[in-house]
């Protein structure tokens, strides 16, 4: 039987002296270098980030500029006026007042109620009354073009009564009068 302490030292030496697989140092260094290379690669990629952001900004500015120009030269849009909705209660109130007060479509939702046929008839009557008073207004519908406004201005002026206009009309009438050409007579030779 061997001495216990001697045996224990032998076993511990073996236990503590375990060897790694061959080439562990190389594997460690390869992994360290690979990580270092990857880190440098990512660092270089980050250099392209500001250029990418600048490119995106340029594209955004160009697109925005193009759309803003299109909006500037776009024809005016005619806005339809929603017919006013008048409830029964408001109709009664409007009857008692001299000037009818119309409630527009912009009234808050909680004030709307389901209309009965009587309410609808009353609303239609108020709408007719409003139309007679001049609605819809000319500043909203129909839109007057520049050409139309010029024509209306010319029409409204009392130009036709002026002498110059009379003279012009006379001249125009003379110009439009058919020419009277005498028959050509050819003398015999």
């Amino acid at each position: 039987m061997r001495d216990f302490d001697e045996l224990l030292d032998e076993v511990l030496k073996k236990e503590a002296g375990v060897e790694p697989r061959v080439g562990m140092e190389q594997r460690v260094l390869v992994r360290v270098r690979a990580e270092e290379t990857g880190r440098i690669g990512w660092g270089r990629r980050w250099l392209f980030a500001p250029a990418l952001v600048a490119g995106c900004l340029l594209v955004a500015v160009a697109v925005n500029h193009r759309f803003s120009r299109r909006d500037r030269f776009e024809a005016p849009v005619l806005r339809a006026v929603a017919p006013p909705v008048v409830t029964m209660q408001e109709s009664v109130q409007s009857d008692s007042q001299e000037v009818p007060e119309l409630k527009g479509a912009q009234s808050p939702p909680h004030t709307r109620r389901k209309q009965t046929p009587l309410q609808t008839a009353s609303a239609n009557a108020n709408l007719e009354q409003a139309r007679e008073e001049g609605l819809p207004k000319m500043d909203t519908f129909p839109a007057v073009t520049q050409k139309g406004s010029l024509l209306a201005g010319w029409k409204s002026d009392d130009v036709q009564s002026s002498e110059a206009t009379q003279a012009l009309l006379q001249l125009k009438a003379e110009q439009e009068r058919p020419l009277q050409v005498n028959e050509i007579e050819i003398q015999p030779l």
Partner: protein
Amino acid sequence: MDVAADWADYARKGRAALKDEARAAEEEFAALVERNARRMFRVAYSLLRNSHDAEDAVQEAFLKLHRGGGWRRMEDEKAFLARTVWRVALDRLPRGVEGDRDVAELEIAAKAQSPEERVADRDERELLRQMIDRLPEELRRPLVLSAIEEMTSGEVAAMMGIPEGTVRTRVMRAKAELRKRFGAAREVRR
């Protein structure tokens, strides 16, 4: 043109100097790995008891050192590296194993499992190795670590975060426990 040439020359020299410095640092780090990898592997193995896990722990420890640049500021190289790989190995231990198990509980378990009966016909050396493996971690770790070459009880104490006297006491307790169990096993075999 002369100024431009001077600047180009200056930049070239600067790049060359940086390259030389990087190459020197790389060689220095490679030498550090060559000097300490095996020792660190043994430290990790004493905790993890698996060659692959121990090697992974060594690689992770070196990667951490290289990333942080801590390897340039080491005072006691061996102790510092041993502590680093010890912490890495502790992190790699499965949950519930990192803490030292209760000694009494393990002794009861060892008696219930009766390793002496199972390995009665095996070699005495193998029997003793199994007994070391079955020791409580708080006794086994200082015993195995102190057996690693050039590892003093002070280094083991610093690594485990316990007083040096405690390390010596635990080593003595471990040996006494092994002697008692080994004697009992021999009696059974007779």
